[in-house]
């Protein structure tokens, strides 16, 4: 019994210490570059996709800890990608943060209905804000580990 608890503790410690993976879905090259650099510097491991379709495929394959996505993108937009993700058993619970310049409340409402609880306005957020948000969402324990 104590051994199992001990093993669990070690595993938990190891899990907590592991680099969290962030999937960044953004079609603008420069923005992708700026965000990737900052997130890596903040200690995250970063996966990138430049449209919703690519983002969806990568998310389902690699199961990142958090997805940071734009809304307006070619091929597949952010909303559609989120909708598709929520159909998946794993994707149902993954933490998603929207980072966009869109301030259309209808689009944001739609995202909320898909179970995305956090939205940031690009031009109003400093890089520190973005990283703080990512950290707090990762630590928020909203995800269901099932």
């Amino acid at each position, binding site marked *: 019994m104590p051994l199992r608890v001990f093993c669990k503790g070690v595993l938990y410690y190891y899990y907590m210490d592991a680099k969290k993976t962030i999937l960044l879905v953004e079609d603008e090259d*420069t923005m992708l570059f700026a*965000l990737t650099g900052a997130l890596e510097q903040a200690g995250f491991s970063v996966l990138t996709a430049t449209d919703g379709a690519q983002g969806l495929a990568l998310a389902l394959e690699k199961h990142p800890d958090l997805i940071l996505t734009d809304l307006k993108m070619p091929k597949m937009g952010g909303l559609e990608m989120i909708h598709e993700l929520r159909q998946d058993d794993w994707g149902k619970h993954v933490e998603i943060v929207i980072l966009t310049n869109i301030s259309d409340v209808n689009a944001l409402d739609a995202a909320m209905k898909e179970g995305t609880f956090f939205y940031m306005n690009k031009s109003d957020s400093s890089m520190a804000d973005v990283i703080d948000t990512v950290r707090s969402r990762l630590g928020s324990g909203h995800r269901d580990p099932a």
Partner: protein
Amino acid sequence: METVTSFIARSPLIPLLALIAICAVAAWVVLFVRNAPVRQNQRAEKLVRELAAVTEILGRAEKLGHFGSFTWNFVEKGSSYWSEEMYVIFGLVPRRQPPDISIFVEVAAPESKGTVQEALAKAQAQPGPFSFTMRAIAPDKSVRYVRVEGVTVLRGKTVWHIDGFVRDITREMEIDRAKSEFVTLASHQLKTPLSSIRWLVEGLASGAAGALTPTQQKYLDGIQRSTQHMIAMINELLNVSRIELDKIATRIEEIDVTALAKDVIAEQQHDADAKAITLTLKSATDLPRIFADKNALRMIFQNLVSNAIKYTPQGGSVTCELSETGAKNQSVFFSVTDTGIGIPADEQDRVFEKLHRARNAQALVADGTGLGLYIVKTIIEKAGGGISFESKEGRGTTFSVTIPMRWRESGGTFQLM
């Protein structure tokens, strides 16, 4: 010579000539009097012809210029008149009804009815010029924007009549709308590269690309400030164009006004401290919670407080006050009093004008869009409240806002930035 004169004097011709002359004069008088109606008729006909010509010219001018004229007599209703173009503008051609002031309300679109009724009641109550803009819906469902301008005339102490004209400003409104849409699109497009610049500069400044010399750091600070400034300006442009397009969404929620005001003041404390300005909030203790758009209300507080700090010299004071006001306590009253540079008397009526900045404000703070107060006024009036100010140049200014306890909803889809 003598014989000639005496002959004339004695001649019977003289009385005869005199008689003929008298008869002629009498005949002329009789004829003149008898012909008077005919001449009057001729004159009247001439006047009628002239009047018809003038009316026709006016009619053509009205058609070309898309305006119609009217007069409404409150006492002798029969002498009220509407020009043909009035009926055309309101889509009531062929004339369906005699001129009546109530037609303005009848044709007004639902959201304009209130404005029209209010304006007409005011026009009837006080003499002088009045004007309002309305959206009119014709019986055939076509929509026009109409500007009404008029003047109320007294006879003695009675409100006698209203003279005025209406102008079809649909085309102007469309052009204005296209302009606002262009501004929205352009500013929105600018935001993406600006966000990139901001983040890249932040990355550089944080040392992500290697250590920086103090001079490099200073350059970057400058870029960072300018970028922030540009983002703030673009946000203001977006707000203005969206307000004008009626695209701002209001989200009504229950708000603790005092907490919100405290929050805003805490945010601005740093700027006040930097100029050794005493920033205080006096608040009534038991203010009720109100139903308002938090984002918009925050923006109103922020604008007024930051303006006060910006235009108050070192060591001055900015005092904010919150209290309940209005009959049956229907609104909350917020005021900001500063010991700043004040607004010059001759510029006071332009304070809320879009893009206007007072001379002394420009001299003190070079950058500023002149959009802040315009945005504040538009938001608060849309919500059903109001804003006013009192100012003395060189002494200070007090801005006062009446915040309704229940805001009017508006149906847009965009958040204020």
